[in-house]
């Protein structure tokens, strides 16, 4: 069910744009108002989420220790997996954010013939990382629409991405990999019974949305019937970037669908699980050093509690303590 809802939602939105921008000619709304609104929602929403998290304190130091602690001088501590210095933490976070370190550990448990076996399982890591890096590359590549002159790194990226020189226009490797990775993530959710069981519409929706964005982009670029005028697109993009928006004529409707889906993604971002982009940096099990016996950590709300004091304890048991020859503070 969840999967159909999400698919229909994305298709419905595309149809909506087709009607609005294509047939009714409301290009200004889809080309200017919607993108601006989406960016605004994204920026405000994103910051508010981060601030919301940051407002809650981290009362205790609770890193997941995935390696040897720092203890005796002759025992080699694990500087990154069980960091005890700031640099160690930076290293751990970098490995986490850039290389998906924890996911790389993934194993698969299998119970067969009365034996439990654990195999290394890196598919999710592989496609996860491919998805994220290709998506990032594609976003950076898009900067060429928003800049004049196009910065050298964007040009370089463009060239590397099209290195294989297949077809005309040159096929970007990232386009192919992105779609493949998205399909893997989608099919995994559908085929694996456990994944299917736990997946929510909120899991399928962003996949379809990004898939929609990717496919509309690809259609515009590679298929003649959907071709849009790139110069006009650049005029529109530059207009948005310089806050003097204009709507040039002759951009095909496919472009507006592409832009709209991306705007929806931006606006949806802060309210969804996509916020893991920001949250990963704030995760206390990863971003804290394992030094809680070396350095005192302060809890701003350290709760006052009622304790059973030694005095009370002795009052409760004094006679028995005396009889058992245990020292007491006060004689009976």
């Amino acid at each position: 069910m969840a999967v159909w809802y999400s698919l229909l939602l994305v298709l419905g939105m595309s149809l909506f744009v087709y009607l609005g921008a294509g047939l009714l000619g409301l290009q200004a709304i889809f080309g200017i108002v919607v993108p601006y609104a989406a960016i605004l929602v994204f920026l405000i929403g994103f910051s508010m989420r981060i601030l919301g998290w940051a407002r809650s304190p981290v009362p205790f130091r609770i890193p997941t220790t995935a390696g040897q602690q720092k203890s005796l001088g002759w025992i080699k501590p694990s500087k990154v997996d069980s960091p005890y210095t700031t640099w160690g933490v930076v290293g751990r976070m970098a490995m986490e954010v850039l290389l998906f370190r924890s996911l790389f550990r993934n194993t698969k448990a299998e119970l067969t013939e009365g034996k439990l076996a654990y195999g290394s399982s890196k598919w999710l890591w592989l496609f996860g990382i491919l998805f994220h890096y290709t998506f990032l590359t594609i976003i950076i590549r898009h900067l060429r629409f928003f800049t004049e002159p196009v910065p050298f790194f964007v040009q370089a990226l463009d060239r590397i991405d099209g290195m294989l020189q297949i077809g005309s226009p040159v096929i970007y490797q990232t386009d192919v990999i992105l779609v493949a990775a998205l399909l893997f993530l989608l099919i995994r959710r559908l085929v694996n019974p456990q994944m299917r069981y736990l997946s929510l519409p909120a899991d399928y929706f962003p996949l379809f949305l990004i898939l929609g964005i990717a496919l509309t982009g690809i259609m515009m670029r590679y298929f003649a019937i959907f071709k849009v005028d790139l110069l006009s697109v650049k005029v529109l993009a530059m207009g948005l970037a310089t806050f003097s928006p204009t709507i040039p004529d002759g951009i095909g409707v496919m472009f507006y669908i592409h832009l709209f889906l991306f705007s929806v993604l931006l606006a949806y971002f802060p309210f969804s699980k996509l916020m893991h982009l920001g949250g990963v940096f704030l995760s206390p099990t990863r971003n804290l050093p394992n030094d809680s016996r070396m350095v005192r950590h302060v809890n701003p709300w350290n709760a006052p509690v009622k304790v059973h004091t030694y005095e009370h304890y002795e009052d409760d048991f004094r006679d028995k303590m005396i009889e058992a020859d245990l020292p007491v503070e006060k004689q009976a």
Partner: protein
Amino acid sequence: MSQAPKPEELLRVSHIPPKKDWMDPRVDLIPGTWGYPGKASSLETLGLPNPREWNPTDEDWKLPPNWKEIIHEGLKERLEKYRSLKVFLDICVRCGACADKCHFFIGSGDPKNMPVLRAELLRSIYRQDFTMAGKILGTFAGGRELTEDVIKEWFYYFHQCTECRRCSLYCPYGIDTAEVTIIVRELLNLIGVNIDWILGAAANCYRTGNHLGLEPHTFKGNIEYLVDDIEEYVGVRLNPTFNRKGAEVLFIAPSGDVFADPGIFTYMGYLMLFEHIGLDYTISTYASEGGNFGLFTSQETMKRLNSKMYAEAKRLGVKWILGGECGHMWRVLHQYMDTMNGPADFLEVPKSPITGTVFDNAKSTKMVHIVEFMADLIHHGKLKLNPSRNDYLRTTWHDSCNVSRGMGMFEEPRYVLQSVCNNFYEMPENTIREQTFCCGGGTGLNAGEFEYLRMMGGMPRAFAVKHVQEKHGVNRLVNVCALDRAILPPLMDYWAPEVSVSGLTELVANALVMEGEHDRLTDLRGEDIPGMEGDE
């Protein structure tokens, strides 16, 4: 009451989820997979809300009339107090990397035991009540209505998590379902929904200092029995002191080691070790429990129980504290104690009086783990050891969850074990060190009535042991956690018979050549040491 089914039956577990949607909260309380409720008297001792007689199988759980409001306010307060909770509820992408990492899921096949879904049981309520998307879109955004059935579901599934953090290791964002479990158990405690094996122990710790409720004279008496046993098996008479002011070190062990087999052999080991090196130490009857059952109740209860350690160290005027072999005790000591009950500025930075080593890693807490302490002694050649006395043992090492994923102690115990025992074999790679598997009964799930699930949850650990048993003839599973010492023996009987369980210090003491000892014909268990009988 509940007897676990035969191992063969348990092995038929299916990991295919049922047809029913997970959002439906109604649970079937399978016998043997849930604990008896907390007794009213225990709640009263601790001053916890809603003391009453009730039973999970009853329709009516006698919740306070405003229970919904209490949970809502409780959750709100905790969202403001813990960034971990907020972030963990918001950023899970349901990638499922954690799903087959939980021993309870592997063992039971129940999909709500996948860490991601376990957390989702709370997340769905949070979404509905605290997020904009949930308020507007409801179920579509993954929200669920908070009903009594949800409370029952929470009771069931959050007492099927041992807070072992194995899931957290694999999560790309470090989402720690143990944190979520801790919070949900706190919420449940706000309306008087809890289990007796935790609450009873916590109340006892509060009143008498230890979880069995041993009063001071009994506590001392028990240790004196151990002293008698040592005299019999080793031929040396020891004189431990209690509540003695001015000792250099206060020694605190989990109280399970004081009265329960096989922990007592570990305790005998502690006493022999201290005698051997001439440590100036004392044992407290007031702070007579290392294990902290508050961790499974609420942050406040944890703090109240833990506070005794510093209070007693101050009263007795010791220089620093030495802690015994325990799991949860060390999670609390390592990650919470200094923050909750510090600063311990009345103590000195721990320094081994025997080797002169300064324990910089415990500079602030002033609390050293006995395994760190022993490793240092052995490294400096301060112990006279005869490891061949342990030759009849073929050992493997169980990394206890808390000292592994909550502390990072991996090398010290291996060093000690290999110094006192010639036969050591590691279990398979994906089941040790940070990837270690829980015994299946931590966090107060060692109750008799919980046996069925414990055997399922302990299966991954047991299978790894069985593997080395078959391959290398391993017959002894060594660990540093008192709950492990209680939970693993029945687990081994069930899955890997003939493998016995012990603490590390027991093996150290077996190998220790004490001054004035007679011929050691038996080990600390009073059992003949094979190969030593010939000396008779």
